[in-house]
C-alpha cells in the first residue's frame, strides 16, 4: 500500500487545511525501536468539504487526525491551516488557532467531564476566550444546544450521566461548534452508538455542516458510514495512503486491492448474497514497529509480486478524481482474486 506521493494533493491556494509528508513515530520503550504510526501521508481539505479517513484499527487514521491539530506535533512533515504553518507554531501562537480547529471523539460519555453541568461543558470555550458577557454566552449555549436537538431549558443544568450515549454525542457536537470553528475533526463519532442513533447523529452532522459552514475530517472504520458523509475518501493502511477518491466512484470501482478487500468484507443486509462467495482478506494488519518493505500491504495482497516488496508504489492519478498507490491496481470491473481460499494469516501477528 500504500505509498507516498502527492499526486492527489490540490493546489495550496485552494485548500483550507493541508498536511504534507506527515510522519508520526512513537518510541517503543528504551528498545530504540519505533512505531511507524503515520509514514509520509499527505492529505488536504477544501473549505466546506468532508474528507473521510478509513482503514482498520492501527492504520494510523486517528493519529493522522490528531497530528493535524498538533496533538502531538508530528515527527515530520508540515501542516498548513488557512495559510498558517501549524507545525512551526508553539505555545500561545498555537493556542490562538485552536478555536478554529475542533475535535469530536469516539466515546461520547468519557469525553465529557462528569462533574460539570452541560452549560459549563458547552460554554467553556467561550469563557476561556472571553467571548461576550454572561448573558450573550448563555444565549449562545442555548442556541447551539437547540441546534443539536436538545431542549436548552432541560439540558442546561443536567450532568452528562443523565443523558444517553447519543445525547452525549450531541453535547460534544455542541461544544465543538460553539467557538465557530472552521474545521472539525470527527474521530469515530458514531462507532460507539446504536444503528438507530448513529443515523440521527450522521444526519445532525450534515445539518451542522450546513448551518455553521463547517469543513469536516471524518475518521471511521465503517465504509458505509464514511461514504454517506464524505465528498472525498482516503483509504489508509499501516500508516500509508492506499487510495483517494470520491466515494461514489471509488466504492463502485476500487482500484486498490485493499479497498476492494475492505468492501468485500462488509456484511451486507441481504440474505440472497452468500458471504462465503466473497472471500475475505486473509491475515491481519502487520506490526507497525517493523512494517513490510516496499508496499506495506503486500503481505496480505492477493495480487502481490516481487516488485511490491522491492519498491514502494507512488500515488498516481487514475482520472475522475481517483488516485491509487499500487503497482498492480485493479482494472475497472476486475474482481479481487481469492487469497488461496485460506484465511490463515501468513505473517506473524503482533498485538
Amino acid at each position, binding site marked *: 500500500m500504500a505509498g507516498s506521493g502527492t499526486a492527489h494533493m490540490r493546489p495550496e491556494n485552494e485548500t483550507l487545511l493541508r498536511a504534507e509528508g506527515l510522519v508520526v513515530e512513537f518510541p517503543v520503550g528504551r528498545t530504540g525501536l519505533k512505531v511507524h504510526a503515520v509514514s509520509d501521508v499527505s492529505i488536504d481539505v477544501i473549505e466546506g468539504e468532508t474528507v473521510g479517513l478509513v482503514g*482498520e*484499527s492501527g492504520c494510523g487514521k486517528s493519529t493522522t487526525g490528531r497530528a493535524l491539530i498538533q496533538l502531538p506535533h508530528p515527527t515530520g512533515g508540515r501542516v498548513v491551516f488557512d495559510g498558517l504553518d501549524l507545525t512551526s507554531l508553539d505555545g500561545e501562537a498555537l493556542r490562538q488557532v485552536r478555536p478554529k480547529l475542533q475535535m469530536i471523539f469516539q466515546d461520547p460519555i468519557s469525553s465529557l467531564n462528569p462533574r460539570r453541568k452541560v452549560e459549563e461543558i458547552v460554554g467553556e470555550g467561550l469563557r476561556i476566550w472571553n467571548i461576550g458577557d454572561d448573558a450573550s454566552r448563555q444565549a449562545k449555549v442555548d442556541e447551539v444546544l*437547540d441546534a443539536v*436537538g*436538545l*431542549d436548552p431549558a*432541560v439540558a442546561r443544568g443536567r450532568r452528562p450521566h443523565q*443523558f*444517553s450515549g*447519543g*445525547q452525549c*454525542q450531541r453535547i460534544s457536537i455542541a461544544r465543538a461548534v460553539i467557538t465557530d470553528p472552521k474545521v472539525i475533526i470527527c474521530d469515530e463519532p458514531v462507532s460507539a452508538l*446504536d*444503528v*438507530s*442513533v*448513529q*443515523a*440521527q*447523529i*450522521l*444526519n*445532525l452532522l*450534515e445539518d451542522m455542516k450546513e448551518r455553521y459552514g463547517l469543513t469536516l475530517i471524518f475518521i471511521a*472504520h*465503517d*465504509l*458505509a*458510514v464514511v*461514504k*454517506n458523509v*464524505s*465528498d472525498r475518501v482516503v483509504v489508509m493502511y499501516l500508516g500509508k495512503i492506499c487510495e483517494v477518491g*470520491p*466515494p*461514489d466512484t471509488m*466504492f463502485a470501482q476500487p482500484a486498490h486491492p485493499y479497498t476492494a*478487500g*475492505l*468492501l468485500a*468484507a*462488509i*456484511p*451486507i*443486509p441481504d*440474505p440472497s*448474497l452468500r*458471504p*462465503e462467495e466473497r472471500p*475475505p*482478506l*486473509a491475515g*491481519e494488519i502487520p506490526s507497525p514497529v517493523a512494517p513490510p518493505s516496499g508496499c506495506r500491504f503486500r503481505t496480505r495482497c492477493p495480487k502481490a509480486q516481487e516488485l511490491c516488496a522491492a519498491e514502494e508504489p507512488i500515488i498516481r492519478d487514475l482520472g475522475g478524481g481517483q488516485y491509487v498507490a499500487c503497482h498492480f491496481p485493479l482494472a475497472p470491473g476486475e474482481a479481487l482474486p481469492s487469497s488461496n481460499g485460506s*484465511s*490463515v*494469516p*501468513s505473517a*506473524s*501477528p503482533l*498485538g
Partner: protein
Amino acid sequence: MSRKSRAERFADAPGDGALLEVEDVKTYFRTERGTVRAVDGVSFSLERGKTLGIVGESGCGKSVLSRSVMGLLPKQNLIREGSIKFEGSEVANLVQKDMQRFWGTQMSMIFQDPMTSLNPVMKIGNQITESLRYHLDVDKSFARETAVALLASVGIPEPKRRLSEYPHQLSGGMRQRVMIAIALACGPKLLFADEPTTALDVTVQAQILDLLQAQQRERFMGMILVTHDLGVVAGRADDIAVMYAGRIVEKASARTLFTEMRHPYTEALMKSIPKLSDKSHTRLAAIAGRPPDLVGERKGCSFAARCPYAQPRCREEDPTLVDGATLGHQYACFFPVGTPEGREALARNQDALDTTVDATDTTVTPGVG
C-alpha cells in the same frame, strides 16, 4: 476432539425434537429504580445444525436472553419465569452446580470482548486443556494434542508454539479464534456467539464469521448468533428474531424477514443503516427517539412512541405475536408494514403531520438521540 466421548454422546442423543425450546422466558432484575424487565416473555425453538440470529439494539435484552438459557445470571435480585428445554429436559430451574454439566459439552458461549474474556496470566494451552480435562476427564497429553488440533482447526498458525503463549501476545482476531477453540473444545451441541465480532475490524470480522459457519456445519451444532448488525446475520442465519424492549417483535426465516418484513421496527432498523449502494450524502432515515426504559409496567406496544405507523390502539393495547403468510413468520403489530391496515395507518399519521408541521416548531425535544 475427543472422538470416543463424542460418539457416546451421539449415541444417546434423541434424534427428533428441537435442540432448544424456549417458552415464555422472563428475566427481571430488581434494582433500586424498580424491576427491570430485561427479557419479557420470549419464545423460540432451534433445531440441530441451524443458526438463529438475534438482532436488536443495546438494551433490548438479547444478551440477557442468551445468558438466561446458559444459566449465567447473577444470583441476587433476579426474577425468572418460563421454560427452557434443552433436548427435551428442563434447564430453566437448575442451579449453577447442575448447570455446569451442560456447559462445555452441551452448550458453550463465545463472548464479545476477546481481550477481557481470556485469563491474562494463564497460557493459551492451559486455558483450552482446562475445559477438556474438567468436562471430559481425559489425560494431560491427550488434552494437549486435542488443543493443538483445535487451534489448527480455527486457523491459528503454528498451534504448538501458541500453546505456551499468553493472550497479550496475540492480536484481537487471534484471541477471538482462541475463544472459539475453547468454546468448541468439548464438542457442544449448542453454541452461543454473543456479538462475537463487534470488537474486531471488518476484514477480521468476515474471517471469524466464516470460521464460525464452517465449524457449525462440520459439527452440526445449533448456533445462536447475537448481534446488533443485521448485515452480520443476513447471509449466515437460517432464522432471524428481531428483539425490542425485551421481546421478540418479529421472527422469520432470513429470506422472509428481508423480503416481507412486517414490523415497523424491523423496517426502521433496516432503513437507518447507511448502505454502500446509496450515493454519498443520502439522508438517513433515522428512528426518532430512543429505546424505552425497561423499568415499570408496560402499556401498549413499546415501539409506539417511535413508530411512524402508531395509532391510538398501539398506545393502549399490547400486540402479541401473530402468524404471517409464510410458514414460521411471526410479528407483533396491529398495523403491519406492507399490509392495507399498515398503509392506511401510515397515511393517516402523515396527513396529521402535514397539517401540524407549519404550526409547530421543528425543534427536537430531549429524549431524541
